[in-house]
């Protein structure tokens, strides 16, 4: 299964919100959709889910225009909210029915997911009696009860404690394992780094960077070394201008030529008391700041 957005454009009144967004997400993998606030992520997601049409461009599934009657989406919106005064099981079943499930199957599936996320005791409670984190778990269930082919999770980890975050990670991994397309949108770069094989960074309605995360990282020059040592000052004095100070015990050594890195590593390890030395890879955070911070 391969989902493609091709040159999507969208105007709201005079304002062009999306200026030709293209990206490719594949089944069995997680895709990270990144961008600053107001960059056009939610609009892209809404066009993808057919909430409103694009002014130009197309959404393809396996190369053909997507058939919204056949393909189901599961969506966890960033702005959470369900019916605060209604019983949890009632709203789970209602939303699953809206997605085309029959009542019986919807109850069964909702019960399965309540059990899976450890929420069975709240089944017949009203939503507003639950804590924020638990409400979020209920909202996550609404995205999964109808067993959608494409799951879109917008900031899924915000507000979850570490135990619940673990639980959510397991669930997401399961869904990916079933061959589904999982689309993440988040500002928590560590989670995206952990899950997503591919990413796209949207800035001002344009995709400024997209591709496999590993490829993107490798494309950066590998001419910097991270050196962790208790002899930080000594190293800096010895190597001079090519050093810069990192946080804590870290010294960052920049080489003129990346091919010299083995020699430099050897030199460092032999000469000083070094705890760790490795090639410095850009973090997703660095990449994000570079591509999403750019003013177009």
């Amino acid at each position, binding site marked *: 299964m391969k989902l493609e957005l091709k040159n999507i454009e969208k105007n709201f009144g005079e304002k062009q919100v999306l200026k030709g967004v293209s990206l490719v997400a594949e089944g069995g993998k997680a895709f990270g959709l990144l961008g600053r606030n107001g960059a056009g992520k939610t609009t892209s997601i809404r066009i993808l889910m057919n909430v409103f049409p694009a002014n130009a461009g197309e959404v393809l599934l396996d190369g053909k225009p997507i058939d919204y009657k056949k393909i189901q989406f599961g969506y966890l919106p960033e702005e959470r909210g*369900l019916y605060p005064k209604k019983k949890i099981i009632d709203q789970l079943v209602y939303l699953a029915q*809206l997605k085309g499930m029959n009542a019986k199957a919807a109850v069964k599936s909702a019960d399965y997911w309540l059990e899976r996320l450890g929420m069975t005791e709240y089944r017949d409670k009203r939503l507003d009696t639950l804590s924020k984190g638990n409400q979020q778990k209920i909202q996550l269930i609404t995205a999964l009860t109808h067993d959608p082919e494409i799951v879109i999770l917008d900031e899924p980890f915000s507000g979850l404690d570490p135990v619940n975050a673990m639980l959510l990670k397991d669930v997401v991994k399961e869904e990916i394992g079933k061959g589904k397309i999982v689309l993440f949108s988040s500002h928590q770069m560590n989670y995206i780094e952990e899950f997503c094989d591919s990413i796209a960074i949207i800035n001002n309605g344009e995709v400024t960077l997209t591709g496999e995360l590993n490829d993107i990282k490798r494309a950066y020059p590998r001419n910097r070394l991270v050196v962790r040592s208790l002899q930080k000052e000594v190293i800096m004095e010895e190597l001079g201008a090519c050093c810069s100070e990192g946080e804590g015990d870290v010294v960052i050594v920049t080489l003129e030529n990346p091919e010299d890195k083995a020699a430099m590593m050897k030199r460092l390890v032999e000469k000083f008391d070094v705890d760790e030395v490795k090639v410095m890879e850009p973090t997703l955070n660095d990449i994000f700041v570079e591509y999403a911070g750019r003013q177009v």
Partner: protein
Amino acid sequence: MKQLWTIFKFELKSYLANKIFIGVTLAVVILTAIVMFFPRVEEMVENIKGEEVTEEKEDDEKAVMLIAGAQGELVYEAFAAAFNDYEVKVTTDTLDDIKKQITSKEAECAFVIDDITQYTYYVNNKALADHNTVVASEVLQMVYRMSALMNSGLSAEEAEEVMTFNVEYETETLGVDQAQNFFYTYIMIFALYMVIVLYGQLVATNVASEKSSRAMEVLVTSAKPTSMMFGKVLASCTAGFLQLAVVFGFAFFSFNLNKSYWDEMGTISAFFDVPASLLVYMLVFFVLGFLIYAFMFAAISSTASKVEDINTSTMPITLMFVVAFLVVFYGFNNVDGMLMKVVSYIPFTSPMAMFTRIAMSEVAWYEITISIAILVGSVIGIGVLAAKIYRMGVLLYGTQPKLGEILKAVKKA
């Protein structure tokens, strides 16, 4: 279609499970029951009381009414007959003494009659429903006329016959009796008005609260906005109709249980004497009138982000509806007038106006057909427009757009 049905069921269920909805319906039903059973209960209470009263009659003192002045003696008999719930006494006390007796509550009131054409009424606190002067004036007029007739040579019997002469008459209504239909038409129009205003507001609140709780974020990706809007409106229409049916059904049922006690009360009996055809018209105009306003309420409220904004944003519709109601209410005086004829074709007033005309006058079938056709067309037109506004409105947050802006955007889309 399946989605519409799912939404309809969900929304209807939440109306029917709503404690306030159940409470209000029950309260109205109980109130109706109290009214309907009132004559029966009253009679029962009177029967019990009646037995006690006959036993205690001697202790039961009547209030005292004093008659004074030059003509006092002359009119005593006539007053005693007219005011039989007073103990009427003739007195020759001075005016000051009479006043004292009244302020000290020895006597309740006094008539000082110096001349048969003029009197003074003394009372301590004049009650709102004090009709003693009206009765006294009538009695004195009677006495005056009797004495005039007798002075001109008639015997007492002849004079009395002249005075109590009655004209007998009969009425045969060939068309519609407006006096008889007025009552139930009024009640039905008022019920229509209440249900549309109440449920219109409920639809508006319902839409806005889905937006403010952000449940809309998930809903728009799960269901078509048109299904959402039509599902909601139809559910509230059904809930409103059910509520009306329960209240009127129960009123009808309890009226029939107590029918014999109500026979003297013409208006109430007339109310339950509604022709079946009129009930069908009621249903037709209720549904169409409800839909046209509920669509507008839904569309406007979809552009509001918060429940608090609902009252201000739906104000124009509510005002329009109040004006429509007042116009029709004013037209009650002259149901065949030009005003009523015109407003019975305008879709925003026709549900009430045409219904009033059908109930209280004779309307040609083609007039009814044209009116309903215009109304149906408008319901469809406004429904389509409302669906378009709704689809856009539900995703709008922030400042509420002006009506002109909304329509412009709809035209573009």
